[in-house]
């Protein structure tokens, strides 16, 4: 088996090799790069479903009762199912697999300079469980009663009792899929942490590790420490749904609010689980395209650890008005506002890295800078929600929705595009088309802002979330034109993704051949062939310096690879 995957360097020549079946190469591989691509393509496929769902419910929201092309009539039950699974898919089946699993798998062994993950078979199992979880989730859309529609947060008793949610089978599939997905990422996380710590190239000290590797390690640690309570909660919910237990049923001595604690104890660190890998990728890209050393590497690193630890103390800011003891809100207001300090610091550091740089606005750099510009909006609007005194008004309005789309969209979508456009030459050995790439950037980032800036105002004006149609609400129905503007912007943004898909597959076939180090970058992944063969490096590298020695005064070239002896 190990022999069979020895020759899986690239798509093109794998087909012709007589020993390799399609199955062994693409579905049963233990090569970290192939597993990364499996995660990436699965995640992107799920993103298409999640995007389609957003299209369908936004059309209903803007034009109630219309026959949505490609979907049909959206019933209230469909609407709830669509918003629920849009959120679930985008966070658990897009952000997690692409940012953590795909980039973690692809980058960690290449950037620390080793041949593969420490536990390749565990890695393969991780993807297989993930794939199973995606299949279970999708299967849940087609069971009698339809897919689960109790919101991605799945608060019981609605999620626990079939008579209340009217999707008894769909809700069971949903919980099962989420639980399986967590198992997959637990297995993956073990690999990321172990490989980064134990397989570093000779000479690579802890402060020589590229920041993106650190961020994926910290994200994996956060995930491992936070997911336990939610897996326990998911099992309790499965029992409540199917075995008649009453963990969340007050009539049987349970408590519905318990689920909220378990969910958000995981759910808030989860934000940082997906944020950190993107922050790491953005750091790498900014350093390469500003030709600058990362500003205050050690400060960045400790700030990220600090953010991670602090992220465990803020969860109840999701529950200010959920019926928890109101005194708790004061504690969680303080911890939540405290977390603005490290996040602000990281953005300051990134901006400081641009200072006296030599900036090339390539496509990956545009995405990285676009991340900073938009994520900042998500960050500052979080202050309104972390402060209990103003959250009373904003809770469960479109303001919240716009806020977290200004965090998750930059994290998951902009971050993915930044990473894919930056490492595409390394992944596939060919260059992406820059003109199409920039066109795609502008046609994504402008409509994105046109979708969500108006939604902040709708929230400010009192619009509450997850409503099928606002016709019954006199104070809100008058804003229908704004909803339509947001929906039309969404249509433009979704259409623009065709440019990316076209560019991706066109460049895969006929893009310019990439050299090993097309950007003159320092980190180790650029010091092996593009794409790297199985085993990655012809000769395992030795590391002599940190990852960001760009524009060093002693050097004529403006870069200094980590493995270059002098």
């Amino acid at each position, binding site marked *: 088996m190990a022999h069979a995957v020895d020759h899986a360097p690239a798509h093109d020549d794998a087909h012709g090799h007589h020993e390799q079946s399609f199955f062994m190469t693409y579905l049963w591989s233990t090569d970290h790069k192939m597993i990364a691509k499996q995660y990436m393509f699965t995640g992107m496929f799920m993103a298409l479903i999640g995007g389609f769902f957003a299209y369908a419910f936004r059309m209903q929201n803007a034009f109630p009762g219309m026959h949505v092309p490609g979907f049909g009539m959206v019933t*209230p039950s469909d609407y*709830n199912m669509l918003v629920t699974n849009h959120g679930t898919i985008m966070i658990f089946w897009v952000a997690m697999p692409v940012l953590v699993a795909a980039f973690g798998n692809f980058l960690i062994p290449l950037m620390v300079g080793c041949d593969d993950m420490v536990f390749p078979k565990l890695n393969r199992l991780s993807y297989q469980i993930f794939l199973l979880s995606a299949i279970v989730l999708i299967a849940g859309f087609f069971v009698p009663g339809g897919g689960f*529609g109790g919101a991605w947060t799945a*608060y*019981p008793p*609605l999620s626990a009792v079939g008579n*209340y949610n*009217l999707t008894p089978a769909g809700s069971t599939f949903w919980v099962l899929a989420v639980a399986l997905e967590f198992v997959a990422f637990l297995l993956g996380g073990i690999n990321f942490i172990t490989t980064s710590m134990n397989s570093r190239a000779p000479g690579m000290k802890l402060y020589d590790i590229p920041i993106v590797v650190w961020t994926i390690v910290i994200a994996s640690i956060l995930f491992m420490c936070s997911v336990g309570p939610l897996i326990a909660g998911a099992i309790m919910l499965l029992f409540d749904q199917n075995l008649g237990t009453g963990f969340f049923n*007050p*009539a049987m001595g349970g408590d519905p609010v318990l689920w909220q604690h378990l969910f958000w104890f995981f759910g808030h660190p989860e934000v940082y689980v997906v944020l950190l890998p993107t922050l790491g990728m953005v750091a790498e890209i900014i350093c390469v395209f500003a*030709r*600058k*050393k*990362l*500003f*205050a*590497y050690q*400060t960045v690193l400790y700030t990220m650890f600090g953010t991670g630890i602090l992220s465990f103390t803020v969860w109840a800011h999701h529950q200010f*008005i959920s*019926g928890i003891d109101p005194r708790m*809100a*004061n504690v969680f*207001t303080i911890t939540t*506002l405290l977390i603005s*300090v490290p996040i*602000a*610091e990281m*953005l300051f550091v990134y*901006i400081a*890295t641009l*200072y*006296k*740089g*030599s*900036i*090339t606005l390539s496509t990956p750099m545009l995405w990285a*800078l676009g991340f900073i*510009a938009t994520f*900042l*909006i998500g960050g500052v609007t979080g202050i*309104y929600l972390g*402060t*209990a*005194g*103003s959250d*009373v*008004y904003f*809770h*469960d309005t479109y303001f919240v929705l716009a806020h977290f789309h200004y965090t998750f969209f930059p994290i998951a979508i902009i971050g993915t595009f930044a990473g894919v456009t930056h490492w595409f030459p390394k992944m596939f050995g060919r260059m992406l088309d820059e003109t199409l790439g920039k066109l795609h950037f502008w046609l994504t980032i402008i409509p994105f802002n046109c979708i969500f800036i108006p939604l902040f105002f709708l929230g*400010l*004006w*009192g619009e*509450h*979330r997850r*409503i*099928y149609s606002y016709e*019954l609400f006199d*104070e*809100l129905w008058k804003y229908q034109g704004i909803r339509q503007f947001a929906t039309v912007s969404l249509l433009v943004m979704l259409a623009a993704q065709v440019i990316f898909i076209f560019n991706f597959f066109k460049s895969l076939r006929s893009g310019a051949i990439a050299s090993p180090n097309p950007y003159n970058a320092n980190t180790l992944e650029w010091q092996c062939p593009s794409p790297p063969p199985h085993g990655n490096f012809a000769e395992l590298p030795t590391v002599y310096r940190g990852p960001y020695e760009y524009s060093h*005064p002693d050097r004529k070239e403006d870069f200094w690879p980590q493995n270059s002896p002098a």
Partner: protein
Amino acid sequence: MDIFNFTRLPALSSFATPIDDVIGWVTVMVGFWFILTEAVFFYFIFKYRKQNSPRAAYITGEEPELFRWISRPHAAVLVFDVFIVVIGVRVWLDVKQTLPPEPVPHVRVIAQQWAWTFVHPGPDAQLGTDDDIKSVDDLHIQTNQKYIWELEAKDVLHSFSVPAMRLKQDAVPGRVIKGWMDANAAGVYEIQCVEICGIGHGLMPGKLYVEDAAQHAAWMQAHTPTARIAAN
């Protein structure tokens, strides 16, 4: 004074303006940081383009004279945070942690899939007596009178929200959650359920009728069970 009311809604309750003020001050403070940060960010991108700046400087970020450009704003953010915590917590204490001194009339608010039931205290201003007035989806209160509401849910989570009052509280099955409200202007306002509660979540608009003392008394007289029995 309600210079910070960005909601396009009246500031109906006595805590509406304090909440608007928190929103306003947060806007001032995060607006300052947002504009400053974006301005520096775009200025750097413009100033240090490759054509203006062919070779980057070598800066580690550990130089004290440069690092303080990070550490000082970072300390300033902390000061702003403390200010926001103070104003936010002060309002929270008023809105959620204190109840008006008794005696004030109580109103029972019962949420279920997919309707609101309101139990008004009736002319005797006491809940649990024969003259209690029950209504579905319509809540009647008197202007400038503080009420304590007792919020219950029959089936799943719901959330009782009156945007014009800036009032919001989840209803949890198995619990009775108390809070207060008042209204300074007569009129009809909207009540929303803001916690997803199943396929009829969008079908729970209630109406809040705020009436002056005379109108409210007349409404009570016309709707008490004793009055209805007499009419029959």
